[in-house]
């Protein structure tokens, strides 16, 4: 038995001149929920279609449960899939929809009935077997889709933006339901989405894709806390980017010149004077105070350009020095108004360097 349930080995897929997937290599462990996350056009759907067999990669191999499936037709791959637009069979009842994969597999009627009832119970739609898809709400349709994908115990569950067509409240509810089912059944799952919040909430690991490549693979915490590139830092959560030149390294503190400001950072290994670096800080990690009340190498002063009240937090856009704009979010009440001067502390341990800046 292979260690991994799914393996992409150097998969490349081109559409004419457009490279949709470029040397994708990815291993997904047994029982793990892996999310392919990225903006539209990043190649996540292409990768998924390579996995289902609806796309054939131009290069590379794909393994499911140790078996090379690259040339295997879709229907022999034993996958279960949930679609963005539900893709239920409109001419069949909910029961018949869920029964379909079992009928194709030639199970006896009593076996089919038993399994369908069980699957409908799993998605909490026991009484809805005789309904046609058009008689069900979006959330119910997607749960039938889930039951149809799970009823034959496929080796892998694929979810292609399954919540995009649902309204916000239902989306959050279904998110937990899907995660709960996946854990209970211990099934390996691949989840495709462009919604970072969904990805962070659901995934055991996330693969962030951009322009056909995988930018970073890691747990949601790793991705959020230690983004490997500017793209990842930008895509996951809000980020302020500070690009500057190292001016001095004094023990624990590295001094960075950003525009005409001097900022202290926690020293990272290999920081050299004169090096261009890119650091980032999350808007909710920045501390604000009245001018003159804080001091230190990590404290700067600025002016509030714009203040937006968001209910549970307040969003400030600050101007530091001449050009540097900084976005800060702080909880609670409005403390500063547009035009006021503020002291800004960029905590050293929260300003992380993500490699060299664009030269």
């Amino acid at each position, binding site marked *: 038995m292979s260690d991994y349930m799914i393996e992409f080995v150097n998969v490349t897929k081109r559409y004419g001149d457009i490279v949709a997937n470029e040397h994708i290599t990815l291993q997904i462990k047994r029982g793990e929920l892996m999310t392919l996350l990225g903006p539209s056009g990043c190649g996540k759907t292409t990768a998924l279609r390579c996995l289902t067999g609806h796309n054939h990669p131009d290069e590379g191999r794909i393994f499911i449960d140790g078996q090379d499936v690259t040339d295997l037709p879709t229907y022999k791959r034993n996958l279960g899939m949930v679609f963005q637009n539900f893709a239920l069979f409109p*001419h069949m009842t909910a029961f018949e929809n869920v029964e*379909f994969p079992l009928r194709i597999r030639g199970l006896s009627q009593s076996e089919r009935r038993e399994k369908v009832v069980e699957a409908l119970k799993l998605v909490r739609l026991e009484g809805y077997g005789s309904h046609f898809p058009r008689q069900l709400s979006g959330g119910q349709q997607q749960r039938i889709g889930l039951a149809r994908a799970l009823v034959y115990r496929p080796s892998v569950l694929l979810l292609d933006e399954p919540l995009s067509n649902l309204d916000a409240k239902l989306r959050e509810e279904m998110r937990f339901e899907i995660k709960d089912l996946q854990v209970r059944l211990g099934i390996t799952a691949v989840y495709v989405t462009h919604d970072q919040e969904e990805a962070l909430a659901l995934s055991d690991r996330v693969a962030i894709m951009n322009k056909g490549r995988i930018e970073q693979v890691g747990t949601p915490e790793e991705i959020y806390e230690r983004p490997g590139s500017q793209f990842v830092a930008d895509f996951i959560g809000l980020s302020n980017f500070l690009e500057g030149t190292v001016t001095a390294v004094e023990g624990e503190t590295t001094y960075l010149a950003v525009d005409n400001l001097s900022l202290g950072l926690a020293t990272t290994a290999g920081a050299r004077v004169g090096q261009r670096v890119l650091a980032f800080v999350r808007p909710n990690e920045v501390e604000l105070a009245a001018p003159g009340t804080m001091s230190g190498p990590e404290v700067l002063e600025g002016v509030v350009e714009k203040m937006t009240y968001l209910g549970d937090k307040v969003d400030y856009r600050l101007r530091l020095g001449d050009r540097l704009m900084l976005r800060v979010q702080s909880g609670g009440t409005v403390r500063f108004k547009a035009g006021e001067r503020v002291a800004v502390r960029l905590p050293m341990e929260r300003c992380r360097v993500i490699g060299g800046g664009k030269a």
Partner: protein
Amino acid sequence: MNSFWHKQREGLITLVLLSPGLAGFFGLFFYPMLLTVILSFRPEGREVGWTLAHYARFLGDPAFRDVLGLTFSLAVGATVFSVLLSLPLALVLREKPKGNRLFRLSILLPMMMPHLISALGLLLFWSKRGWANLFLLTVLPFLKEPVAVNYTIPGLILFYVWLFYPYTCLTTLASLEALDRSIEEAAEVAGANRLRVLWHIVLPLIRPGVLAGSVLTFMMAFGAFSVPLVTGGNYRPLSVQIFTQATLYLEWSAASAMAVVMAMAQVTFLTIYMRVLRRPIA
């Protein structure tokens, strides 16, 4: 009184606006049809009196029943083969192969050409020394004699299919292209191979479209006139028979009776057809 006019105003305006259309409908469509029906009950050549003699004569005549049977067989045959031709053709065209636009346009060709021209062309093409036979004789070495197509029943069905399959093909193609591809993908992922996807998913979903198209083909084939007149030879379906009765024997009442029988047969058949095939689609 005032309120009465007020209430009736909208209805009156509607009636006034509809009247040109209604006049056209009654004058050009309903009145001639009524005349035909009345004429079919008149003794031949008379303006007065009522008789069922024409109906009795035709319905009791085995030769007439043969004509009715022939007309049905031709129409049903043409419809069946049109569906059998349209399905694979539409399935291929849906994948948008190279040159499919030209092919799509060429489907319309039989609809754009006058049927008489098509019929004459087909006669020439399929004649004993026509291109079709020259080709077949060259390609198939076991073929010793040219294939007889013209003036045979299979030949007539072939011509009907060529002339009337576009109605079925276009509606089939339209319903196929309206299908959501992810539904088929879902069936594939669930374990169905292409044949089973076609059987369990695609065919049931496009059935209403195919049905609608085949009804059009059937009606065209049932009522076809110029094609069997030119290419039918001894096989004379109802429309040709009615034409002969009216213009050759000048028996207008008899011809009218046949026309009424033809219309009734057509309506009855179509009603049954729709009932049987059009189970409500979910």
